């Protein structure tokens, strides 16, 4: 199934999640006008999220994202692990409906 969800982080930037999934995430793009230093961390993050079970909780997704952030020594500006996790869960919950918040 294909899904996407756009989420404006309060006080931050826009995150757009686009993913394909069955019982697991088959592929995922984390898009938006935020900043992550170093920028290459985004590919590491997308690779780490690929293959994960979609029934993980938002907190579980956030913990995994935080783990990648730390191992990459990445700094996120206008976005954070919690808001990315929220957008992922919303994309899955929406079942392919595109929404903007």
């Amino acid at each position, binding site marked *: 199934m294909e899904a996407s969800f756009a989420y404006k982080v309060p006080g931050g930037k826009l995150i757009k999640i686009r993913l394909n999934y069955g019982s697991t995430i088959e592929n995922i793009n984390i898009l938006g006008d935020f900043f*992550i*230093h170093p*920028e290459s961390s985004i590919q590491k993050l997308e690779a780490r999220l690929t293959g994960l079970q979609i029934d993980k909780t938002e907190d579980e997704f956030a913990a995994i994202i935080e783990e990648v952030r730390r191992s990459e020594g990445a700094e996120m*500006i*206008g976005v954070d692990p919690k808001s990315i996790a929220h957008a992922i869960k919303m994309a899955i919950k929406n079942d392919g409906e595109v929404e903007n918040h």
Partner: protein
Amino acid sequence: MTEKWRIIELQEKGAYLNMGIDNAIMDGVKSGTSDPTIRFYTWKPPAVSIGCFQSMRDEVNVETCKKNGIDLVRRLTGGGAVYHDREVTYSIIGSADMFPSGIIESYRQICGYIIYGLSILGINSTFAPINDIVVEGKKISGNAQTRREGVLLQHGTVIYDFEPEKMFGVLNISKEKISDKMIKSAKDRVTSVLEHSNVSMGELHLALLRGFCKGRDYYIGTLSAEEEHAALNYSTEKYSSDSWNFSR
């Protein structure tokens, strides 16, 4: 330690070369062959640049841009989609240790040069974190930064003349949605130098130059032959390629 900065005065270039030049200077600063550099440029033909995490097809009306000869390019930096026309762009490239280590603090410092430049034109602007400069709450400048292998690049634009109708035509908003209300709302959020000061684009460039050069040891320079060659290479191999521009 004071380091001498190279200033490259306003040049009009295409999108791919503009991004190629920034990239080539970054490489030169990293390898120690280029001095830290501040350059000013405009875009001809007009172009849309997108942030490195954005999707070109999501953000940009690609067909309209192609039809109207507007170039499309993905930046090295994050941030949002920008329509480049009737504005002055700058880039500042130096060793990261020449700037505050905090990213927001370094935005604040560099945006301070623009704020000073605008004040010369009688425009009172302020830094609006994360990466904007505003006049009376309306955006006049957007900025984006990357740090790679010890080198900091920040580039940004100062809007000289804001034309929302043109902007909406190229950014990916369906025609049905381009209502008068939207244009009015954009005018409530974005402003331009011309709205506040009746100066030429050349005068804006000079004011920004003074803002960036204040208290700095600098010389007016040009690109080296090596940088020109590398920039051209980046332009043809990377920034004009679909594999880079449409990679997300």
